[in-house]
């Protein structure tokens, strides 16, 4: 019976190809939109997670403000408040020194951000981040060099004007030229480039990029700006096993420094990934919810056409009932037809979203990730839409009385 109904559904869909296609269009667009949004969300998550993973599993990031609310174990549901890390920093030189004294901590490196245009070669860049730090930074981040090396602690202590350049920043300023020993201007002060970083694997243009960055010694930045503001502290722990212990020790030490106030956050790589995942998930579900509206519109389209189709096929229904079809036989026939229409629509929607994904990859350099889960969601959504919006027409068809139906033209 099911096979028979599937055959009937296909033959009826094929007998009016254009109409079937137009009926499917709403579902095609709806499924494509939902799937594409899920895939882009997943893709962004993948890239950001990749970037964070590059930090290493034995690295802690100390930042000003309460970035993650809820100190509970359920990190997925922790609410993320990145703006609390902006503004005047609560981290101090004293914090830095206190952290250095904690057991199991190998290296500590402060980060200060400097805003400035950068002039280099014959170009000016306004997007490049200027990260002022100490020599440990290069070790903690495990930076790989295409050319040259990171600055030394002597460079930092003496406040010498040297700089390390990321691959994107180099491309923007110097193109294909070798930047080593070239000068760049930061706030009109000349800095000599002594190192060029390799392109990082998860290069992306989302958020601050490690590739579009220039690294200078902290003391040079202090001389340049006449201020010292510790934006972040990155910490390398002796091993990944000690990370939780180190985290709580840093937390209690800094809390004492800050007069008992926890106006800072100590984040592991896992914390960062789950925080990013949680905001991305929220964003994604919001966008997907909007995209789903088009699925509902698609469903209404199916219902509309199915109702017309039921009227047109009254005589067919009459004949089927005459030779013995019951209410449920006819109901099943039309329900399956609606489901087949929306499933085929879902399939074309999947194809459309893959095409859309290729375009998105080209245009904004995000690789959409099609998880099996997303594909299953899209297909079950189309089946559900088919059922919901197919039920009314199918009941209408199944209720027809044989004698009236037979007499219909």
């Amino acid at each position, binding site marked *: *019976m099911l*096979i*028979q109904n599937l055959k009937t559904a296909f*033959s*009826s869909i094929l*007998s009016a190809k254009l109409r079937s296609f137009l009926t499917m269009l709403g579902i095609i667009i709806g499924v494509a939109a939902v799937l594409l949004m899920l895939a882009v969300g997943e893709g962004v998550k993948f890239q950001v997670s990749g970037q964070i993973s590059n930090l290493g599993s034995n690295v802690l990031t100390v930042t000003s403000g309460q970035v993650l609310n809820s100190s509970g174990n359920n990190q997925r549901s922790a609410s993320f408040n990145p703006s609390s890390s902006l503004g005047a920093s609560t981290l101090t030189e004293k914090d830095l020194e206190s952290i250095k004294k904690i057991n199991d901590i190998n290296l500590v490196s402060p980060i200060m951000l400097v805003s400035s245009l950068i002039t280099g070669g014959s170009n000016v860049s306004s997007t490049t981040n200027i990260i002022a730090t100490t020599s440990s930074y290069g070790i903690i981040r495990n930076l790989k060099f295409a050319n040259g090396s990171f600055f030394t602690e002597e460079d930092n202590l003496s406040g010498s004007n040297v700089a390390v350049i990321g691959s994107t920043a180099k491309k923007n300023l110097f193109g294909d030229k070798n930047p080593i020993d070239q000068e760049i201007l930061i706030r009109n002060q000349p800095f000599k480039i002594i190192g060029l970083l390799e392109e990082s694997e998860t290069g992306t243009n989302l958020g601050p990029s490690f590739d579009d960055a220039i690294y200078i010694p902290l003391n040079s930045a202090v001389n340049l700006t006449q201020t010292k503001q510790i934006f972040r502290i990155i910490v390398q722990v002796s091993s990944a096993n000690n990370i939780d212990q180190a985290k709580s020790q840093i937390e209690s030490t800094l809390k004492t420094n800050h007069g008992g106030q926890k106006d800072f956050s100590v984040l592991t790589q896992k914390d960062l990934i789950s925080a990013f995942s949680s905001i991305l998930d929220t964003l994604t579900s919001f966008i997907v919810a909007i995209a789903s509206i088009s699925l509902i519109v698609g469903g209404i389209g199916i219902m509309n056409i199915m109702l017309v189709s039921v009227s047109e096929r009254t*005589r*067919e229904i*009459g*004949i*089927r*009932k*005459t*030779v*013995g*079809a*019951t*209410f*449920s*036989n006819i109901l099943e026939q039309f329900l399956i037809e609606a489901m087949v229409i929306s499933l085929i629509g879902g399939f074309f929607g999947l194809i459309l979203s893959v095409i859309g994904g290729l375009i998105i990859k080209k245009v904004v350099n995000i690789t959409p990730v099609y998880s099996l889960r997303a594909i299953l969601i899209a297909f079950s959504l189309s089946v559900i839409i088919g059922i919901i919006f197919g039920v009314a027409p199918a009941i209408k068809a199944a209720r027809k*009385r*044989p*004698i009236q139906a*037979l007499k219909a033209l």
Partner: protein
Amino acid sequence: MTEKTENLVINLRSIKKRYDDEAGVLNALRGIDLTVKKGDFLAIMGPSGSGKSTLMNIIGLLDRPSRGNYFLDGIDTSKLGDNQLSKLRRDKIGFIFQTFNLLPRLNILQNVELPMVYRGISLKKRKLKATKILKSLGLEDKIKSRTNRLSGGQIQRAAIARSLVNDPSLILADEPSGNLDSKTSDEVMKILVRLNKTGTTIVMVTHSSEIAAYASRSVRVKDGKIS
């Protein structure tokens, strides 16, 4: 008397049918008593509008009488729901119409299989049986054709094949040759006679006394009554 009712395929007891709609009230059947025995070939005659098709629809369980009782193979049909009526039609009645009523989107084989589909018979058995019956009616080379490729006589033979596939106790034919020329209607009538000879009960509506002559007995309907 009991022995007699046991052999009745159709037993109609004071059947009345009243149409009541915006256009007015019409008593299409005004008390019909009619019995058809197993193996009968009954012709129902009468002028246009006399209620023949109305009667046939009630006998075929496509419509319900306003009053009266109808026993089909001894089953009181007035107590049955729509789905049970569907199943009774499927299992006990074969229909042949003046307008054929085959599905244009299906080929002849699929059309003939349809009553067996609703009976839940397997694809293999369906194919076997439908092909056998179509062969016996000389349609073996039309099995894959759709109705628009067939002549009226061929379509009606396919419809006869469809009416036979579930081995019904009763075949109902409402003017089966009404759309056919005299030569093809002769062919169709000969098929019906042959079926009747092998024991199939047939009730047929016709205007023509020539056609009615093929039946073993006939009744006349006039103004909703058997005269």
